[in-house]
């Protein structure tokens, strides 16, 4: 990682007004990047928590600012909400003597395939992979098709490794639906990994209901005494549910790599004074 000690970093998370765990991964990775002393200042900002996207730039004191969406995919938030709220005009925005560099979402980092596979192995350590379906679950939304493409692309990359009997994608809000996992998977073991940043409302509370392993949304992950117990035996199948990948420590490195990729793509032809 090049020296960024003259630069500021803003990590943008979704946040939640209902779930206290939603912002945790964003703070976790910000703390880790602060600990490494790589930037002059590091802030978190959220769509649904404070500091808001409207307020965070008042906190930033430096003139060279990287904004990294701690989001799993390109889509409605990275293409519409964040640029609109931060008043960005593209990857590079010059405003009031400052330069704001808007990076890709951290979920675009090539490490995601390994993180998903790691989570799958953690959740179901001893299953025979040749008798196992791996289901990568994304949000999916009618607001932007890229949300679904991200999970599909991860599933394709994992399929290409030939480890599991089958690798499929499923979504909360568009077909193929998570709730249809029984019909869409063929193997006796099914490992479900949510392609989400946080163990928040969707991955910890909504998807388990859609899968049929909970009858109603449960408390937030941090408010439960006991984490879920795998496997769940349903209709003669063994279902394993993994936690979201966003709390993996390697996500901090994925954020830093995202910044390096931004520099290579957008600043390679510009002189810059980072020493």
């Amino acid at each position, binding site marked *: 990682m090049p020296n960024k000690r003259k630069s500021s970093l803003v990590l943008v998370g979704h946040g*939640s*007004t*209902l*779930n*206290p765990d939603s912002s945790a991964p964003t*703070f976790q990775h910000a*703390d880790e990047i602060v600990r490494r002393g790589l930037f002059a200042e590091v802030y978190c900002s959220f*769509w*649904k*928590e*404070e*500091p*808001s996207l*409207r*307020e*965070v730039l*008042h*906190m*930033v*004191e430096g003139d060279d600012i990287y904004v990294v969406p701690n989001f799993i995919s390109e889509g*409605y938030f990275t293409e*519409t*909400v964040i640029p*609109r709220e931060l008043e960005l005009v593209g990857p590079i925005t010059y405003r*009031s003597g400052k330069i704001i560099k808007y990076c890709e979402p951290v979920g675009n980092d090539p490490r995601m395939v390994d993180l998903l596979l790691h989570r799958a192995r953690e959740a179901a350590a001893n299953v025979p992979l040749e008798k196992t379906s791996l289901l990568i679950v994304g949000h999916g939304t009618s*607001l932007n098709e890229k949300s679904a493409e991200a999970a599909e692309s991860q599933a394709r990359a994992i399929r290409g490794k030939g480890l599991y009997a089958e690798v499929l994608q499923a979504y909360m809000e568009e077909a193929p639906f998570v709730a249809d996992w029984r019909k869409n998977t063929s193997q006796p073991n099914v490992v479900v990994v949510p392609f989400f940043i946080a163990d928040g409302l969707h991955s910890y509370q909504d998807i388990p209901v859609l899968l049929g392993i909970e009858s109603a949304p449960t408390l*937030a992950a941090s408010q439960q005494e006991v984490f879920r117990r795998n496997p769940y035996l349903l209709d003669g199948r063994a279902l394993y549910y993994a936690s979201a990948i966003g709390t993996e420590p390697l996500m901090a490195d994925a954020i830093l790599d995202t910044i390096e990729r931004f520099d290579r793509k957008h600043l390679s032809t510009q002189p810059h004074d980072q020493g």
Partner: protein
Amino acid sequence: MIRDELARLIQDGYNALGELEFAESSHGYFLYHSADRNLLNETRVYHSIEDARKIAKYDSAGAYRPLKGAPNLPRGWRIELTNVDELKKALDSFYPGALGSWLAYQNGKARPICLRQTLNRQTGMYRVTRKLTDEQAQNLVQEACRSDGRCLRTILWGIEDSRPPDFLPSSKFDPTVDQTGQKRAALPFLCLEACNLLVAAARNTMKKSSR
């Protein structure tokens, strides 16, 4: 820098922000809930910014606090910090952006954004809030943002551009008023633009009115 401004403000006598109070000590600074002012010896001592973030996350009953300006911070703690930079970061954990926004406003680098402008740029599930009437908006803000129980920020935006929120009590849009009613030397805790919670509440208003 913001921390230097904060040090200067403390020298000038400011010692409060929202429900918090702070003071210099022989070791640096300490920060506590204003209701614990006379009980500091009985409070549990903490030392880090992370502690500040954890304390600010839940109320005394253990319920999640999505709105940081809500007057329901738990009591019974004090945070001892070694320098003004840590104090600034701790204040940012309790009231994110409060210092930066006030200084930006004072320096002419930030201005209030009226509610119409905020609602008119909403998309997706919040697009419907563009249809909020003036009357609905006023009722909503009077209830959802009141300092008595809801949010301690001082509102500087109105419903329409260049009109102050004169449908609110005058104290609610006067930055010199301590919104806790204690008349302390409190740093202004400004609201320069409606937050996402208010936009979400506006959506609920629209959903109810369409039934």
